[in-house]
């Protein structure tokens, strides 16, 4: 009964009603993951569960038993920032920074989905392999809100990482 969080095993809580979000923040003291609405609407609590983006406020910790969670603290390799973190800095992808950990985790998973050829509602050419456009990014990042309105910088940051990865 353990959850691997950024590579370290954390015991599953005895209380089955503890959310993954509370486990991360209150018990593992990984406060990079933020609490926004606590009900699925804002995306601030986004983390990666076995590489897929999930809302940790809507996930019970017990549901992550035996699985692997990556939070904003675990994205970089300890010394260097993850390219997505660097790109957010380069393009002013935030103001207050509250939505940023969720935005970055979501963006990392989103690029993988896009490059894996997973279509979105706005993908016109379903056969075309994941073209990275601003429109695609806006559609695919719609589950992450930014009350400061840094969306333009966020889209530019993600476009930069997509370009780097393609090169």
């Amino acid at each position, binding site marked *: 009964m353990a959850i691997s969080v950024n590579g370290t095993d954390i015991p599953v809580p005895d*209380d089955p*009603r503890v959310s993954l979000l509370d486990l991360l923040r209150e018990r593992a003291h990984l406060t990079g993951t933020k609490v926004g609405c606590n*009900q699925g609407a804002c995306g601030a609590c986004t983390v990666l569960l076995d590489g897929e*983006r999930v809302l940790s*406020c809507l996930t019970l910790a017990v*549901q992550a038993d035996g699985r692997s969670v990556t939070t904003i603290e675990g994205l970089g390799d300890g010394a260097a920032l993850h390219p997505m973190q660097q790109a957010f800095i380069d393009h002013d992808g935030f103001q207050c920074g509250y939505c940023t950990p969720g935005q970055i985790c*979501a963006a990392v998973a989103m690029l993988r989905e896009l490059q894996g050829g997973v*279509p979105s509602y706005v993908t016109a050419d379903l056969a075309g392999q994941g073209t990275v456009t601003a429109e695609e990014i806006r559609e695919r990042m719609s589950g992450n809100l930014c009350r400061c309105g840094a969306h333009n910088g966020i889209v530019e940051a993600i476009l930069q990482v997509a370009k780097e990865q393609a090169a």
Partner: protein
Amino acid sequence: MTEATSDYARPTALPEALALLAAGPRTVLAGGTDLYPATQAQRLAGPLLDITALDGLAGITAGPDGLRIGAGTTWTALAEADLPPALVALQQAARLVGGRQIQNAGTLGGNLCNASPAADGVPPLLVLGAEVELASVRGVRRLPLERFVLGVRKTALAADELLTAVHIPAAALAGRSAFVKLGARAYLVISIAMVAVRIVAERGQVVEAALAVGACSAVARRLPAVEAALVGAPLSEVAARITEAEVAAALSPIADIRGTADYRLEAACVLLRRAVTQALPVEEPA
């Protein structure tokens, strides 16, 4: 931990889940994307049955009598499945439910059981003549979707029953469908109106039409009179045959904070015309 907080079960076998439901009232938890917002509290209360680990509840299988979609199938799994063109509407709806994180957790079964008038899964299933499969220790029964969703937050689900699957009959897998939704802004919205249509065309004419409108009445509805008027129409005339008078007669639209009845009626007509145009086969240039 108190007794009440510990009454949480996450079985892997269906009979175990059904036995728990038969033993007393329990809140079913699937993706939690409707349940948590409705709870308004920090934690879910009362006895819980978490169905996210149940074997065989998720997944889509094809058989001689049609398709079976497990109630635990997520929107992401639906959107990414390889399905016939008649299910395009359901797949488009899947890509428009919340954002990707909601689609990764939220299930088709949860959408139907929650019975919101704005549930995007309902119109695409209505145009497919879908049936729901309900299981309990008493046995398994099937109901047409129209007889399952009864009103706002009201379904035919008994307290000891679990929705286990949705069935699409083979006959409804013909043709092509489309889904169009109108919200107050482009992304992440509750529908003001949404429509699904499925059109079967042969030699330049409509031979079968199924239209459904959601979020305009307490329960999403099919529009049989409008459908009948489309049969036999040459493809170039289909959209024009959708008249406001006929749609109004079938719908009696509701008014609420998201839109007046007149606005909804006009919107429904425009969306229906757009959807049929999307669903029609592309005409070969003469």
